[in-house]
């Protein structure tokens, strides 16, 4: 497929992204560059100086709301993308309400309990929604430990074990790898489903 063919398909699709930190901001920008038509992003937080070691924001954006600033930054990358930004701390009901019409949903939280919450919510309330999670990406090095595993509609990207700690900080390279791996999986799922649906409709 040419990039134009790929972009044409992606331009009709919607991807939800839960969290606008290291995973969410980088994943959103990769999907925007690829030409996804609509991104629904959500985060309650504001940008801090310590975020700039991995998140897709700039020095002069410190203190601003992540979700709306990410929307601005996406506009500078690709002004054809429609971004819907929610400044909210997501709970189970919000996730169903905000993301129910998406083609694919990306989990981009930092806390383990939030990851558990969204996975359980999607598995029980939206079982047909493909959910792509990031699990284990702190520190640096060890490229070969990062992989993806799939369990029905649930896709997990990461090294599956490295938790963040004071001496194992999250950093741009590994967080970026996982964020882009999530975006890559979203593109693949969307394109494959589109081609399959096209064959079924003929």
């Amino acid at each position: 497929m040419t990039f134009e063919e790929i972009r044409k398909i992606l331009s009709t699709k919607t991807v939800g992204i839960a969290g606008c930190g290291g995973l969410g901001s980088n994943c959103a920008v990769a999907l925007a560059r690829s030409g996804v038509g609509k991104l629904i992003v959500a985060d309650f937080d504001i940008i801090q100086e310590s975020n700039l070691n991995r998140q897709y924001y700039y020095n002069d954006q410190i203190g601003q709301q992540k979700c709306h600033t990410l929307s601005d930054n996406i506009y500078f990358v690709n002004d054809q993308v429609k971004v819907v930004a929610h400044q909210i701390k997501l709970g189970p009901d919000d996730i169903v309400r905000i993301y129910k019409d998406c083609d694919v949903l990306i989990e981009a939280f930092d806390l383990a309990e939030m990851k558990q919450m969204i996975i359980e919510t999607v598995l029980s309330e939206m079982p047909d929604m493909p959910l792509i999670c990031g699990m284990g990406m702190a520190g640096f090095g060890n490229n070969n430990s990062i992989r993806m595993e799939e369990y029905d509609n649930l896709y997990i990207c990461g090294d599956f074990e490295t938790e963040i700690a004071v001496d194992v900080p999250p950093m741009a390279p590994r967080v970026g790898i996982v964020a882009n791996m999530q975006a890559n999986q979203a593109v693949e799922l969307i394109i494959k489903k589109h081609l399959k649906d096209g064959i079924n409709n003929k």
Partner: protein
Amino acid sequence: MELIINNRKETVEGDNLTLAELIKVKNYTFKMLVTKINGTLVKKNDRETAIVKNGDNVVVLHMVSGG
């Protein structure tokens, strides 16, 4: 019994274990887990009563912070 755990075939001592017992046998120590049996979500409070039988497909995911 023969199980598929996280997409891999495994042999586990015993038969008809509860999911909580299986987690203990497998020595899964992470506090935060998501568990499924044959594609169905099993929430934390139900792990003591959910039974794992020979041939079941079990998923035990460790929630790892960072993002």
